[in-house]
């Protein structure tokens, strides 16, 4: 029997392979080098991620799927690879400090972050529902574990269980949705699905059911309301660096999955946008309201950030609903900005610990400005950017998000978006007030924060301001992406 082997173009997936090698290298380096501070782990990871980052940059984009149509190395996936790799690097750096303080946290932490990163990169380059699904799981499983990585805290174990059960539940919906889509189109290849749907753009009930289930499944992963209820608990319970990666990487990857499946023209369900846009429209609306309303009432910093992250998911979904090119561009830009500000905020939460006491409540930040002025300043930038203050990337991103919604004539959605944004200033500014106005409530000093954490925060803050003032730095690349796909 003649067996035809498709072309194997490994160099096209070189960044993924490098990250995989790094993950294995990290495990090995912890095995063979007994270092108390685990500098070797962080250094190995940083080196590997840097190499992967520059490899990804140097790749040549091509819209032709590779590996028998399973994955595609277009400029979108290259850009997203860079975003994920940068994010993984930042998380590794802020995680380094957390691990130093909590020695009971296991050293496999970094390796699992890297495995999750591979999952995200796979999602970014899938041209087929099968790698998309495997990528989502490869992203989720390490994150379930990361959420439970702090064995000293009961909350961590509980967060891990909740995250796992809801994640598995959502996988069920996702798979069932894929099953129906496969049933109607008889393929899982997104390009072929797009072509056949464009050819007879008629939504059979089974197909609609498939969409709906897929949307529910992905909605859980990106915590769109009403599928958001796990997020606050998990964000609060998980160790902070894990939370940072759950809040950013996993959410961005979920949106990328949505983008791959729903909006990319000609290759996916874009032909049937009439059927799925109302669904996402409502989800975006509810998510914005619930996220912001929930954040108002929180006194716990990580819980507040969790609701804020839900709210930002709503904003992203809003631009996403428009289904236009500017919508996709705005989503991509905001993803990058969101990554920087959220990782930065969690990084400050890690750095602003007192001896033997992690920063949990917002009130724990009291007096930060006096003792650690740079931390407080960076946190202010993150908060202002999250709120959407002009001069930061958050503002530019939001402007485009709302612009996309207005352009698609979703006026009511844009209006709700603006109103809730105004509302959000309250809880973001509250953090700044605590840092600058309130006196520290006890005599405990804040810990010194490590070099790696400081570096991560500086990168985030500089990046946010830089993108806020010169958005074209990223914008031109993004335009190239959406032009190419």
């Amino acid at each position, binding site marked *: 029997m003649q067996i035809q082997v498709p072309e194997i173009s490994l160099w096209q997936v070189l960044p993924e392979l490098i990250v995989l090698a790094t993950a294995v290298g990290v495990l090995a380096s912890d095995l063979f080098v007994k270092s108390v501070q685990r500098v070797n782990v962080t250094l190995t990871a940083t080196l590997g991620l840097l190499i992967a980052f520059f490899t990804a940059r140097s790749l040549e984009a091509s819209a032709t799927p590779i590996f028998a149509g399973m994955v595609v190395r277009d400029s979108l996936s290259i850009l997203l690879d860079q975003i994920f790799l940068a994010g993984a690097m930042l998380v590794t750096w802020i995680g380094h400090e957390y691990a130093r303080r909590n020695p009971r946290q296991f050293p496999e932490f970094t390796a699992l972050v890297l495995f999750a990163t591979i999952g995200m990169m796979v999602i970014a380059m899938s041209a087929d*529902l099968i790698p998309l699904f495997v990528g989502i799981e490869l992203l989720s499983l390490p994150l379930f574990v990361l959420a439970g990585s702090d064995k000293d805290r009961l909350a961590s174990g509980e967060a891990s269980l909740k995250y796992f059960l809801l994640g598995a539940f959502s996988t069920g919906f996702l*798979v069932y949705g894929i099953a129906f889509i496969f049933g109607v189109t008889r393929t899982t290849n997104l390009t072929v699905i797009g072509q056949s749907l464009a050819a007879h753009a008629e939504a059979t009930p089974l197909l609609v059911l498939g969409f709906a289930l897929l949307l529910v499944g992905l909605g859980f992963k990106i915590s769109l309301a009403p599928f958001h209820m796990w997020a606050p608990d998990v964000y609060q319970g998980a160790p902070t660096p894990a939370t940072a990666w759950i809040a950013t990487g996993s959410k961005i990857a979920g949106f990328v999955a949505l983008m791959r499946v729903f909006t990319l023209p000609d290759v996916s369900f874009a032909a049937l946008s009439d059927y799925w846009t109302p669904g996402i429209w409502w989800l975006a609306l509810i998510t914005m309201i619930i996220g912001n309303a929930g954040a108002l009432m929180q006194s716990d910093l990580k819980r507040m950030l969790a609701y804020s992250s839900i709210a930002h998911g709503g904003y992203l979904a809003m631009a996403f609903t428009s289904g236009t090119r500017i919508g996709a561009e705005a989503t991509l830009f905001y993803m990058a900005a969101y990554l920087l500000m959220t990782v930065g905020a969690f990084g400050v939460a890690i750095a602003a610990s007192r001896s033997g006491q992690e920063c949990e409540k917002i009130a724990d930040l009291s007096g930060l400005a006096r003792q650690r002025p740079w931390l407080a300043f960076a946190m202010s930038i993150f908060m202002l950017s999250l709120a959407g203050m002009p001069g930061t990337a958050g503002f530019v991103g939001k402007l485009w998000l709302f612009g996309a919604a207005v352009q698609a004539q979703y006026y009511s959605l844009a209006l709700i978006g603006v109103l809730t944004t105004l509302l959000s200033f309250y809880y973001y500014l509250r953090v700044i007030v605590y840092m600058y106005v309130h006196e520290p409530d006890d005599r405990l000093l804040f810990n010194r924060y490590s070099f790696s954490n400081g570096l991560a925060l500086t990168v985030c803050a500089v990046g946010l301001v830089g993108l806020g003032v010169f958005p074209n730095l990223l914008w031109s690349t993004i335009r190239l992406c959406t032009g190419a796909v």
Partner: protein
Amino acid sequence: MIGLYHFLILSGVLFSLGVLGVLLRRNALVVLMAVELMLNAANLAVVAFVRYPMFGDGGIVNAQDYAAMTNGMTLVFLVMTVAAAEVGVGLAIVINLYRQKKSVNIEEANALKG
């Protein structure tokens, strides 16, 4: 005569039973099993779709049908693989929590409230 929707209905019923189990039960392990039920219901649907092409004319199967067949079967195969990995991780998480709380009841996992 057994047709596609016999299988689809069975799959739908099993899926719903799984969802019901997740919503109704408080034992984390039973919830995990209910999720497995959901995944297998989905697998059953895929395999049924493979056997009964919805746009097919009932003629002799051709190369394209073979491609669709292996496509569906690969999907099911990977869902099984993923489910196995998921169970492994899930059981580890349950054991981890049991060590701390001596219980696998998800209602009792209430350290997080806000």
